[in-house]
């Protein structure tokens, strides 16, 4: 899919911004703090109904205003047009999403309709941060490609919080808990097994995409791999019933420990995604450069995976990557974007960008200054 036009109203430092959007690569230049990332964040609202980094809706409202609106015309791969409006009112604390002027009641249902892949400085956590950072990565990918996954995830998190409260209170000696725990166990197991199974399946499906993407960026020589370490010891070869049995058994075994610690110790919220290069743990052994290559490969793989699964080409948002990546890697990535559908790129240093892009001019260029965007140069379709 591609965006034809994107409008931001009282969104962060953009009072009223309108972007025509080239169908290929769009590059936003500007100094620090002028409002480039804010544009990508707005696009993320259109695709994921929220900011791509942990940030509340209220903070995106322009200072002194009561709400924001982000709108766009999107055109799908088979040429169907959609009008999307996301608006948030701080007064009513309410976010509304409309597609073709019809309000979407269940907001999560549009996720995956307009798939997106984001590479931003915050993503460095995916390879170097905590297990939670890696779980967030796969959750966003799977949610976009599988409708019921997101629903399971939302319910699972709610059940988990409820169950943890029961355990916490029982630890504090306020109530005895087995009877109170039991009503939550059944659906913790059901939803949890579903999530773990889906993740295990994802890891298997995703592997060849990762290997392929890694070769595109770093050439041959290093072999990346992705593995799934599930706390209920499930893997892709099990049936859902078997996974549930495993989950139930683990839960039973941790019963005393859970009471003691006052929290749920088993389930997909404890899962870990394991990245390796040539069989060595990325987290423990990889150099900074390898981390960066791996991350870019993950994102490129995500792009092709989603394109296949959603039967829709994702838009690609690259925030500030050219100050994060070194020369050769950024050149590779830029060269790749020529064939990756519609891309939105931010950069501070036009000179550096031009070097990395090898002076090619098939980019639509915009300048961003104090929340205002001026169109500088049209995309020249040379290839």
């Amino acid at each position, binding site marked *: 899919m591609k965006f034809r036009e994107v409008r931001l109203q009282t969104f962060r430092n953009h009072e009223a911004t309108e972007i025509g959007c080239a169908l290929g690569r769009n590059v936003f230049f500007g100094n620090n703090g002028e409002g480039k990332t804010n544009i990508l964040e707005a696009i993320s609202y259109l695709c994921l109904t929220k900011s791509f980094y942990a940030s509340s809706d209220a903070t995106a409202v322009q200072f002194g205003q009561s709400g924001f609106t982000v709108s766009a015309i999107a055109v799908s791969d088979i040429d169907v047009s959609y009008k999307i409006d996301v608006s948030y009112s701080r007064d009513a604390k309410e976010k509304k999403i409309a597609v073709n002027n019809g309000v979407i009641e*269940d907001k999560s249902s549009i996720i995956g309709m307009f798939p997106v892949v984001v590479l931003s400085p915050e993503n460095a956590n995916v390879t170097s941060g905590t297990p939670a950072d890696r779980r967030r990565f796969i959750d966003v990918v799977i949610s976009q490609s599988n409708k019921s996954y997101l629903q399971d995830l939302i319910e699972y998190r*709610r059940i988990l*919080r*409820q169950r943890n409260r029961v355990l916490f209170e029982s630890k504090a000696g306020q109530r005895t808990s087995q009877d*109170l725990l039991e*009503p939550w166990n*059944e*659906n913790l197991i059901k939803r949890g097994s579903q999530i773990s199974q889906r993740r295990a399946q994802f890891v298997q499906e995703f592997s060849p995409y990762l290997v392929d993407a890694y070769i595109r960026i770093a050439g041959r020589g290093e072999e990346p791999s992705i593995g799934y370490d599930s706390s209920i010891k499930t893997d892709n070869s099990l049936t859902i019933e078997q996974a549930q049995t495993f989950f139930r058994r683990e839960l039973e075994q941790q019963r005393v420990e859970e009471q003691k610690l006052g929290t749920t110790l088993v389930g997909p919220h404890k899962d870990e995604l394991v990245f390796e290069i040539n069989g060595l743990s990325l987290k423990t052994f990889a150099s900074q450069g390898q981390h960066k290559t791996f991350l870019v490969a993950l994102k490129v793989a995500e792009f092709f995976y989603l394109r296949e699964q959603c039967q829709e080409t994702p838009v690609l948002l690259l925030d500030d990557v050219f100050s994060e990546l070194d020369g050769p890697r950024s050149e590779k990535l830029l060269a790749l974007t020529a064939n990756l559908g519609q891309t939105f790129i931010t950069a501070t240093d036009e000179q550096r960008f031009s070097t990395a892009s090898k002076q090619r001019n098939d980019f639509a260029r915009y300048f961003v200054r104090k929340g205002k965007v001026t169109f500088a140069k049209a995309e020249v379709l040379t290839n």
Partner: protein
Amino acid sequence: MFYTAESIEHLAEQFAQLPGIGRKTAHRLALYVLKLSRDEVVAFAKALVDVKDKVRYCSICSNITETDPCGICSNPKREQTSICVVEEPNDVLAIEKTHEFKGLYHVLGGALSPLDGVGPEDLRVKELLQRMSDSVEEVILAMNPNVEGEATTLYLSKLLKPLTVKVTRIARGLPVGSDLEFADEATLSRALEGRITL
């Protein structure tokens, strides 16, 4: 607000406490009240107080009513053999609209939610068990289709299982995350027809 009187502010604050009313709307409503005649305002205030004074909970099913027992519990034409358990009085209304169910109700007053400090003793669970006499043959659990409703269903079915009563739940054909109250009548009738034995 620069130009306002204290009592307007006070009224607006009261409106703002109502669900779905933001500060702006609360102010508009307060200013609207100012435009009404005194009689109209008195009638409005009386209606508010009457709701509180006259409406009570049925001593049998806990539904809201002005007579005790309520119209449903005291109606001999209702089947005394089945009890439909719901979370809130609104749910009784929603199910009554389908004309599909001829039995009695039991309003729990919510669903289990440890995060909100709601445990079994905060719901009318004991009262439900006390109603389980020989004449009751079927208990239909019709909680909202969300995680709290599900947990409540499991909790109640475990309590009811040892008793000689058939326990069913309405099929989960309702849109996920929605409340029973908002389900349209067709979906609800279908759900009532396709109930599952627990």
